[in-house]
Each structure stands twice: as structure tokens, then as C-alpha cells.
């Protein structure tokens, strides 16, 4: 069963061949047995999962089943889950059990899905390798057979690794600068970051509010579509949520791609990319040509500034978003504070890890008196330029394609000593967040036995088109079905 897709599991349950309780037990047993190798979960919620499975079976018996009723999956540990601890990968929230659900959590609950637990992640979603988690690094299922422990990417590394290792068929994720797409690429699975505002951010612990977007990781585009069907939609609790009709994302998966206009941003095919990676990406594009798409080169002249703009805007927003972790109302508080200042400074020094502190300090500096214009305001102007580049490109083409990451999964510890080297992991993904566009990463080959991701970028609210393009590709390739040994 563990190799089946969400769509297949849904059919199995519908046919009555297996109950959700049985299915859930199988997945839980496998999860408990296997995850020691990957550390992809922070919390496994066995009891709740079985209760949810039982409720799902009853829901089905009552004739109220949805495509998700009884299907197991997992949440990234950034989504608040009522009654289940939600850590965001941080010591700060090690024992935090929210008495409320994120909107995304509530939607899956309502659909009758069975949550097996909370997946590991970089602390407060800050990282590209899942090594900044307080709960330990996650190991990529790929490359393990060669005896090397490689990173799964980040920050949604736990979700990507869990899906790649067949521990769950699907997992929620979030993407602020590439945190869905890069781990999906490094783990050989399919991930979608929707348009900013498409999925509610309520109850999704904020990193950088104007960039964060909840999304999906699963093995196939079809399963991503099934997930988005549950997650997408207007939420009155999120002021930045968009009130716009949600299509059935599975309905258009089989549209032919003939006439699809693909743009290849020349700035994304430079010497930052290894020839082997480039070859895989170009091969994938050739598959699209075979499917009837046309390809042309486009330019995103300001794309090279994206990392710089991002590392002002994201830390600046984060520096304020993370001020609420002060030891007063919830979460970690240091032992025996001698006064108020001591409580704040030690709580935050002890509760946050090194990367989170670095970003808070950078953000604080960028917003502080005398630097605001040079950093923050300037970054916001560059952000506009980047958005305009994309707008111009989408006048000429329907989708853009590029590699998702500059290199395949690297060995744990390889980049932890230099934050800037780590930041460059997101060189092809970050601009998309600044513009707020939707994008996917789709498995597109291997280099040295490690998965390579193809990034497909769409115009605002073009999720259905992206899923369609990814699905059609997956009808003629089997990269997404390869299983790590």
C-alpha cells in the first residue's frame, strides 16, 4: 500500500477493499519502523491518527466521503494542529500544543484525511538543508545506499523526505524562498508553491509574511492537485487571502499541451549550473517539445538581485514576526530570570538556534535607524523590478522553466559553516516568492544517482496550468516513480 498514490488509496478505500483504520495502521507501523533512518517526523500522532481513521470510516459509511476521507498524510510542523504539539522545528516551541487549528489543518480535517504526524523542518522554516532543526537533521532517502548522509533540502525537508521514502503519500509544506520546491527537487518528488494568497496563512507559523505560502508535496502532479483542492480557498481570517474561485485542479490535468509556450530564462542557465544538471533540465524541456510545446529564451534581467532583496525583506519581516516568542504567554522561558530584560534576552538566546538568530539580527539591522532606506526600501524597489521582469516574460510565454536548484542533494554538514553558500541554494527559486507567483518542482532525471528537479513557473493563479503541464510530463516520464534504495 505504501507505494500507492493518494488517488489510488482513495480508490482502494472507496472500493471497500481496505478500511482507513487498517490502512492507517499499516502506514503507522511502517513509519515507526523506517523513520529512524531519516528523522523526517518530529511527532508521530498514532492515537489521534487511529481516531481520525475510525471517524473517516464512519464518514464513509454515512456516505459523506471525499477524495481524502481516510487517506493518510502528514503536516509540516509549521501548521498549528489543535491538541497536537507544533514546534516549527524550534526549542522555543518544543512543548507548544496549540488550542487551535491552522485553516489548512482544519480543511484537511473536514475532508476526513488522516494525519499521521508532524514533519521535520528547518527551524522557523529558515534553511535550505533541514540542518537547522532543533530536532535534528533529516537524511535524504536518496544516496543513503552509497553510505553518505545527504540533506533533503529545506525547509520542508521532512515532508519531502517522508514522501520520497514512501512513509506518507503526501505532506503539506510551506515555501518562503524555495522551501517546497528545492526539497522536492532534492528528494525526487513533486512540489507546488501556489500563488501568494491562494492558501490561507492563518495558523501557519509566520517566517516572512509577504513571502510565505502554504503548498503541497506528493509524488505525482495528480496528488498535488488533490491536495490543492483541499487547501486552496479564501479565508476571512487571513487579510492577504484572495477571494477568488477555486477550480477543481484535477479537472484539467489531461488537457493536451500542444501550443504551450515555454520560456527559458537565460539568467537561470549560466555557469552557476553544472553541465550535468543543465543536460537533465534541457532533456526535460525536449520532452515538452515532443508534447507539442514551443520553447524560446526569455530574460529576467533583475533576477540576479533576487537573493540580495530576499535577504533584506525576509529577515526584516522575520525579525518582527518572531518578536512574539518572548517567554511571556507560551513556549520556552529561560530558568530563573533575574529581571525582565534577562528573561527576554536569555529566553530568546536559548530558545532560538544560530540561523534564526542570525536572521533576526540581520533583519533588525536592516530596519534600524539610518539603514531603512538603504536596505529595506531599496529591497522593496528591487522587488518591484523583479516582479516586472516576470510580468514582461508572461506577455510572451505561458510558463517558464528552469532548474529548481543549482546542484543535487549535498552531503550533510557541507554548507553549514557558511550561511551565504547555503543561501545560494535558492538562487533559482527565490525570485518567484518575491513576485508572489506559483511554481512547481517536478522530478526530471538524475545526476550521479541523485534526483534533479525541473522548475515550472506560472503566472498568477495559473496553478491548474502548472499541474496540467507537470501531469502531462509525468505521463511520458517515470522520474517521479523512481524509489530510493
Amino acid at each position, binding site marked *: 500500500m505504501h507505494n500507492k498514490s493518494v488517488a489510488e488509496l482513495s480508490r482502494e478505500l472507496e472500493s471497500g477493499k481496505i478500511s482507513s483504520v487498517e490502512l492507517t495502521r499499516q502506514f503507522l507501523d511502517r513509519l515507526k519502523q523506517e523513520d529512524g533512518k531519516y528523522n523526517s517526523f518530529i511527532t508521530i500522532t498514532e492515537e489521534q491518527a487511529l481516531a481520525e481513521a475510525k471517524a473517516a470510516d464512519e464518514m464513509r459509511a454515512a456516505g459523506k466521503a471525499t477524495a481524502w476521507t481516510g487517506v493518510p498524510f502528514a503536516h509540516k510542523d509549521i*501548521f*498549528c494542529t489543535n491538541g497536537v504539539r*507544533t514546534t*516549527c522545528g524550534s526549542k522555543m*516551541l518544543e512543548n*507548544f500544543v*496549540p*488550542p*487551535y487549528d*491552522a485553516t489548512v489543518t482544519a480543511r484537511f480535517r473536514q475532508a476526513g484525511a488522516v494525519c499521521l504526524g508532524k514533519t521535520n523542518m528547518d527551524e522557523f522554516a529558515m534553511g535550505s538543508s533541514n540542518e537547522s532543526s532543533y530536532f535534528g537533521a533529516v537524511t535524504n532517502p536518496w544516496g543513503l545506499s552509497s553510505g553518505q548522509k545527504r540533506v533533503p533540502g529545506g525547509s520542508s525537508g521532512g515532508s519531502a523526505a517522508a514522501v520520497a521514502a514512501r512513509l506518507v503519500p503526501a505532506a503539506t509544506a510551506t515555501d518562503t524562498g524555495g522551501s517546497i520546491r528545492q526539497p522536492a527537487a532534492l528528494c525526487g518528488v513533486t512540489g507546488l508553491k501556489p500563488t501568494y494568497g491562494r492558501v490561507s*496563512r*492563518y*495558523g*501557519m*507559523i*509566520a517566517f*516572512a*509574511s*509577504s513571502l510565505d505560502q502554504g503548498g503541497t508535496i506528493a509524488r505525482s502532479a495528480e496528488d498535488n492537485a488533490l491536495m490543492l483542492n483541499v487547501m486552496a480557498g479564501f479565508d*476571512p*481570517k*487571513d*487579510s*492577504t487571502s484572495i477571494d477568488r474561485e477555486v477550480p477543481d485542479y484535477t479537472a484539467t490535468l489531461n488537457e493536451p499541451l500542444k501550443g504551450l509556450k515555454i520560456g527559458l530564462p537565460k539568467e537561470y542557465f549560466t555557469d552557476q549550473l553544472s553541465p550535468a544538471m543543465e543536460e537533465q533540465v534541457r532533456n526535460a524541456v525536449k520532452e515538452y517539445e515532443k508534447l507539442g510545446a514551443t520553447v524560446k529564451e526569455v530574460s529576467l534581467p533583475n533576477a540576479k538581485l533576487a537573493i540580495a532583496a530576499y535577504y533584506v525583506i525576509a529577515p*526584516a*519581516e522575520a*525579525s*518582527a514576526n518572531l*518578536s*512574539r*516568542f*518572548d517567554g*511571556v*504567554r*507560551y513556549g520556552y522561558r529561560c530558568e530563573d530570570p533575574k529581571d*525582565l530584560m534577562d528573561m*527576554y534576552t536569555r529566553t530568546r538566546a536559548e530558545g532560538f538556534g544560530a540561523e534564526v538568530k542570525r536572521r533576526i539580527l540581520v533583519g*533588525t539591522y536592516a*530596519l*534600524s*535607524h539610518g539603514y*531603512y532606506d538603504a536596505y*529595506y526600501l531599496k529591497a522593496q524597489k528591487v522587488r518591484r523590478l523583479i516582479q516586472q521582469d516576470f510580468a514582461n516574460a508572461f506577455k510572451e510565454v505561458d510558463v517558464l522553466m528552469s532548474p529548481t536548484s543549482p546542484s543535487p542533494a549535498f552531503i550533510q554538514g557541507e554548507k553549514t559553516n557558511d550561511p551565504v553558500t547555503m543561501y545560494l541554494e535558492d538562487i533559482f527559486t527565490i525570485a518567484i516568492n518575491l513576485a508572489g507567483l506559483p511554481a512547481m518542482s517536478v522530478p526530471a532525471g538524475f545526476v550521479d544517482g541523485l534526483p534533479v528537479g525541473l522548475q515550472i513557473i506560472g503566472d498568477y493563479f495559473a496553478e491548474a496550468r502548472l499541474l496540467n503541464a507537470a501531469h502531462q510530463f509525468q505521463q511520458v516520464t517515470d522520474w517521479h516513480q523512481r524509489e530510493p534504495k
Partner: protein
Amino acid sequence: MQWDIVIGLEIHVQLATKTKIFSGSSTAYGAEPNTQANAVDLAMPGTLPVPNENAFRYAVMFGLAVNAEIGRRSMFERKNYFYPDLPKGYQTTQLEQPIVGPGYVDVDLANGETKRVRIHHAHLEEDAGKSLHEDYHGMSGIDLNRAGTPLIEVVTEPDMNSAEEAVAFAKKLHSLVTSLGICDGDMSQGSMRFDVNISLKPKGSDQLGTRTETKNLNSFRFMEQAIAHEVERQMDILEDGGRIIQETRLYNGDRDESRSMRTKEEANDYRYFPCPDLLPVVIDDDFIEDARSRLPELPDARKARFKEQYGLNDYDAGLLSGDAKLAAFFEEAAAHGKDAKLAANWIQGEFSARLKAEDKSVAESPITGAQLGDLVVRIADNTVSSAGAKKVFEALWTGENDNVDAIIDAKGLKQVSDTGALEAMVDEVLAGMPDQVAQYQNEEDPKKRKKMLGGFMGPLMKASKGQGNPKLFNEILVKKLGG
């Protein structure tokens, strides 16, 4: 040396919305600690703000009432600082594009002049919670019920030049927001709080001096005292050749002293930036016209009407029109009592004194305008004497009885004004006091004679069981005693 005083005010006005500015929690005052603080108010992880429509409506109404430009596109910024009563670690406020732009308020001064005080802007923001300083084993307690209550912060230009002007402006503003119904105006509960910026400059100089800010004054009296205190402090320093330090000061009204708040140099870097959880708020013509249609009669218009409609003088009209609730009370009393001037006197006399003595607001008054009006009718038609009227008022106030005529009957306060009956009583009393009558008639000094008349009044009131009309008794006495 002679000094000019320069005063600007920042006023925090709590808006009388049902819910908080960014959440659906109740803003009702006086609830058990932290029972009106939900996930958003507590800044629980992942929670997000959604602004309250009425907060904007009230802010726009205020803007219209102070002749201000309305911010058609307004934004929220985050003001970053750590404090236990500030759950998010930042206050969501408006900096670059406030909802209310420049405007003005005309203030009538005691000397009859009118002073125009310019409003620099007014912006929407959220209130903080409260730190309770009583001792919890050496700790402080935090109550976040107030956190997220909508405020408008009104910032004036430094247009006031004395404590009197500042207080007159503050009272005018109080009168405006209560008349608009956008604030309950209850200063003892912190519904309006004043920060006063004060500087001195040599008389006639156009160079502004260094200013200090005295924070969180919550009564007009403290505000007046604090200004007087700070002006004197600055004057002493300047006349000794010293320099004023730009600082924030706290005034202790009970001791009439002030001290500098700990200067937190670093704390002044608030790192404002646009709040990414909120989008620009666009106020369109419909919204403004809707707000305009909700504007009630404002104090200036009401004052003019009171003069015109009730024949009140400027002073009385000013006093009675300022507070919306007092004005309504007066109008009710005047409608029932027919004699508006007499109603006005009673409201400013007995009624106001009693409210003050019991520290009650007009809304908390145990008697209604209609009851006071009924009493005024009975005073005007001579049914009760003013001494008797006070007894009726007392009975109404204590709730002994709620009907004026019933009280007059029950207490036997009806005046006897039947001249025949009164004359008979005078004859009888005078007959029993021959010596005093002779003494009176032999006295030539009219002043002494007048005084001696009082000697007959006691026995007369006794004879009439206190119900004789004293004015008529007096007239009859004079006539009978021969001038």
C-alpha cells in the same frame, strides 16, 4: 525673562467599538483578566489580524468632525519594541499614511476668544494590555483584555500657549468624541489619555525650545497641574542658565511631582515598516458619505441652538452643550419643565454638585431629565419653595419615590399661597408678640427693621407647619407692621 509657553497634545482616544481592532474579541470594560484575549490578541503563533470596519468608520467620522482630510489610502506599520503588555512585540499603528490628515478644532476660551488648534493628523492603532504592579511573589501580572482595543491617536500642532488653552482644547475634544458616540469618554477607565508636549521660548522668539513630553495624563485636572508643574520646572532650569533635555516624563498628580522616565536610548529605534499581514485600506466616497450621514449634531451647532431655542446665555449654553449626555439631559428637563432657564440653573447647581459629590457621570444619574423637568414645573408655579424643592430632589435621588407630585404630597411640601389663610396666621402670630411688634415699629433704621422681620418668620413657618409661602408671608408682614 519673559517666556512663551508652547504646548502640543497627543491624545489617545479609545474607540467605542464592540470588538477589537484586529479580532472579534469583546472590548467591554471590567471583565476578568485575560477573558477577552483570544488567539489573535495573545499573538499566538500563526494568527493574523483582520481590521474592524467600525474602527475605520469612527476614525472617518472623527476626521469629518475636525474638518480634516480623510486618508483615501491608509496603511498600517509595525512599531517594534518589547514590553510584556505588547503581545506581538510590535504595535500595529499608522505612520506614513494615516486615516485622518490635517484638520482643526475651534475652541472657545473663558475670556470669550476663540482659539483655532490645528490637528496634524490622527491615526488608528491598537492599545496595549495592562501590567499590574501589585506583587505576585516579586513578579508583575499581565492582563491582555485591553490589548487590541482600537485607538485613534490625535496629534495636534503646537498651537496652545497656556494650561488653560490646552485644557479647553482637551475638553472640546472630549465633547466632540462623546457627541460623535465614537468614545465613551470615561477618563477614569482610560478611555482618553493625554500626552503633553511642552517647551518654552523667550517671549516673541520664533525659535522653538527643546520640548519634553509628559505622558498618560488621564484627567483634565492632572493635565492642568502637570502643565503648570512642567512650565515652572523648565522656567527654573532656563533662568538658571540650564538646558532642557528632550525626554519623556511621568507626572504624579497626587504628589504634584514629575520624574524622567528611564531614558532608553536604544529603545527609541522602533524600526517601523509596513505590516505585511495587512493590505492598504482604501476609503471610497461611499464610505465617507456613509460616515457623514452618521454624524450627530456637534457641540458647536448644539451650543448655537441652545442659545437660540432656549434663550440661554453663552456661558450656560456652552456648559450644557459640551457633553452629549448632559445636553440630552438638559433638553429632556427643559421639555418637561417648560422653564429652560430654571432647568439650566438646577442642572448646573444641585444636579452637577450631586454628581460630583458622588463621582457619578450623567449616565449614572439616578434621576431623569423628565423628573427634574417635573420638579422645575412645581418650582415655577410656586407649588414648592426652593427649600422644599431640594427635599423633593433628595427624595428623587435616593429613589424614595419617583414621582414629583407624590413626593410633594407625601412630605407635605405644598406651599400655602392662599392670602386669606396666610393673613390670619400673621394676625395671630403678631398678636402673640406685642413687644417685638413695638420694637419693630420704633426702629428707624430700615436695615435693622429688615433684620427684625426675620424674627417673625420662624413663628410664622411654625404656625403654617412649614407650608406657608415665605415670599407672601414677607409681603403681608410688611404691610401689617406698617412698612
